[in-house]
């Protein structure tokens, strides 16, 4: 007798389905305590913003508008990471608020104090070179990771896979990154001493928002969040090993942040495009690749689990075997949408997207043991009929076409964007 092969998700990253947070949330003390912390952080940050707004109204408005705009694509990407089991927007907003209001409020005095301690226990030279690299990551990564723990306390059932931890961690990091960037931009305005001048805001936006934005707090938060996700879902492991992995992930986030803030490669290479490239490649790329691989592994394991739920249906109208393979991978999902557009137009692309969403939701409801699946089955069938009417009945991804083209296009666009940004920053005198 041969043993039933276990899914990768069951072996290394189990999924624990949980229901949507209901009114029961209001009976949890953590909900009110976390809410109070967010409100207190909001008041503190509003006071800081108010001081800047009084002195530099135009710059404040510009900084808030630019960085709010920057948050939109980041938010979209982070919330799309878990396509199959999407996180409730209210919890994503709470994670963002924790990062932007609580973690920042705590980090301002905490990092300054730790920087001072480096100078006192070491020397001003040590603090000048390594103060920002040691103090910032130590305080900020802890404060942000506490945000993911806050989400666990408020809605434990919503952190049901490692990928959920990644999403909440990234969202906490994004909130932190956006608010920190606004404060930095306004600090640059004050330091320039040219009154209410928006040039330092634009330079900060290009430097911190674009060039440093990709490998910044969102990334570090995602790594630490993965550890919390593991801590919560791997109930089959010993408490010690789960805690060990969570600490290791936090250490990874801290080390990535330290590397980014460190003075390594800062001097000696000048301020030209080559120096920038070296910094991006050696300080930003390794953590970025590590975290992308981690996200992919977590996503694939979660996808295995939900695909297994849909497989049980054995109903080709709800999902075909080829669609099941497509649904498991973000790249193949995107290729299927692209394929639908090229074959049957934009309406087909939209219908494929809706079909994939409905199939994913059906899988989640199946995993939760929902007895009445009529609503979700109906939505899948509706999109199937739309696709059939458009002459593209199956949301499949042809082998070997879409991913390569999209990857090449993404690499080219990124290189072009960096070149344009570098030219813009140099023209503004920020280089």
């Amino acid at each position, binding site marked *: 007798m041969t043993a039933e092969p276990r899914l990768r998700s069951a072996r290394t990253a189990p999924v624990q389905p949980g229901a949507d947070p209901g009114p029961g949330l209001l*009976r*949890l*003390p*953590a909900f009110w*305590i*976390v809410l109070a*912390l967010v409100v207190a952080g909001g008041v503190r940050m509003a006071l800081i913003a108010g001081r800047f707004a009084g*002195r530099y109204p135009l710059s404040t408005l510009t900084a808030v508008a630019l960085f709010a705009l920057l948050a939109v694509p980041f938010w979209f990407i982070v919330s799309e990471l878990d396509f199959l089991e999407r996180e409730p927007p209210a919890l994503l907003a709470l994670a963002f608020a924790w990062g932007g209001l*609580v973690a920042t*409020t*705590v*980090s301002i*005095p*905490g990092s*300054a*104090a*730790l*920087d*001072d*301690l480096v*100078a*006192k*226990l070491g*020397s*001003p*030279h040590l*603090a*000048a*070179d390594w*103060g920002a690299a040691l103090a910032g990551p130590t*305080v900020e990564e*802890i*404060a942000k990771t*506490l945000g993911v*723990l*806050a989400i666990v*306390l408020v809605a434990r059932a919503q952190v049901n896979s490692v990928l959920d931890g990644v999403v909440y961690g990234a969202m906490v990091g994004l909130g932190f990154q956006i608010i920190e960037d606004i404060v930095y931009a306004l600090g640059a305005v*004050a*330091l*320039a*001493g*040219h*009154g209410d001048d928006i040039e330092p805001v634009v330079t900060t936006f290009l430097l911190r928002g674009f060039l440093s934005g990709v490998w910044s707090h969102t990334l570090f938060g995602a790594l630490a969040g993965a550890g919390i996700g593991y801590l919560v879902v791997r109930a089959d492991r010993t408490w010690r090993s789960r805690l060990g992995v969570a600490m290791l992930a936090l250490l990874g986030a801290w080390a990535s942040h330290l590397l980014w803030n460190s003075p390594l490669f800062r*001097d000696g290479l000048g301020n030209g495009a080559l120096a920038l490239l070296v910094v991006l490649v050696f300080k930003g790329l390794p953590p970025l690749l590590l975290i992308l691989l981690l996200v992919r592994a977590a996503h694939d394991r979660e996808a295995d689990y939900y695909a297994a739920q849909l497989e049980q249906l054995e109903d080709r109208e709800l999902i075909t075997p080829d669609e099941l393979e497509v649904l498991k991978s973000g790249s193949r999902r995107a290729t299927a949408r692209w394929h639908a557009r090229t074959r049957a137009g934009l309406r087909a692309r939209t219908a494929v997207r809706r079909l994939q969403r409905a199939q994913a939701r059906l899988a989640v409801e199946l995993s939760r043991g929902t007895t009445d699946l009529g609503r979700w089955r109906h939505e899948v069938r509706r999109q199937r009929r739309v696709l059939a009417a458009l002459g593209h009945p199956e949301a499949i991804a042809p082998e070997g076409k879409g991913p390569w083209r999209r990857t090449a296009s993404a690499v080219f666009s990124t290189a072009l964007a960096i070149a344009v940004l570098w030219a813009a920053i140099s023209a503004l*005198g920020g280089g």
Partner: protein
Amino acid sequence: MGRVTRRQLTNLLGALSLVLALAGLAVGLPALDAALPADRPVPSDRPYAVGGGVTVVPPPGARIDVTETRPTENSGTALFRLGPVRYLITVRRFEGDLSAAADGLRQRITGTPGYQVTGTELTVATGSGLAGLQGGYTAPGRGGRYAVFVADGRTIEVTVSGADLDLGRSLPAIDASTSTLRYDPAGPR
């Protein structure tokens, strides 16, 4: 009123631990920082490297505040304390002339509520030949003096502040120290 469940109690303890950890970062670290002294004696018989290739001979009896002193290759700050008087030197990259540098410093001083620049600016020069502009300012309960120099794409800003009486006592020694400002990119870091 319902009973407190075990789950609610655990949840409360978890949330309080969260608050405790945050307090450790926001209050504990600053408290630990405040418990340790920030100033150290600094020799006044040899140049002190402020950063960015700038050196100064500190006034006799001055102590360096390590929390506000950050010397780096291209820029730096050094804060000396003579009793209650603050003597701050800041070096940073700057593209512009002396007048623009003085304008920027004045704007930053007057940008603080209650701070006003007084009198007219005078030209000053250091022993090493750096030419600069010097002026004064007032603030509630304290007075101050500023000076600014420009050298090789860098601005060297000096601000001195303290109560009028203390300032009057310390200014001669600080003026003597300011006149020792030297820019030497090949010099000690």
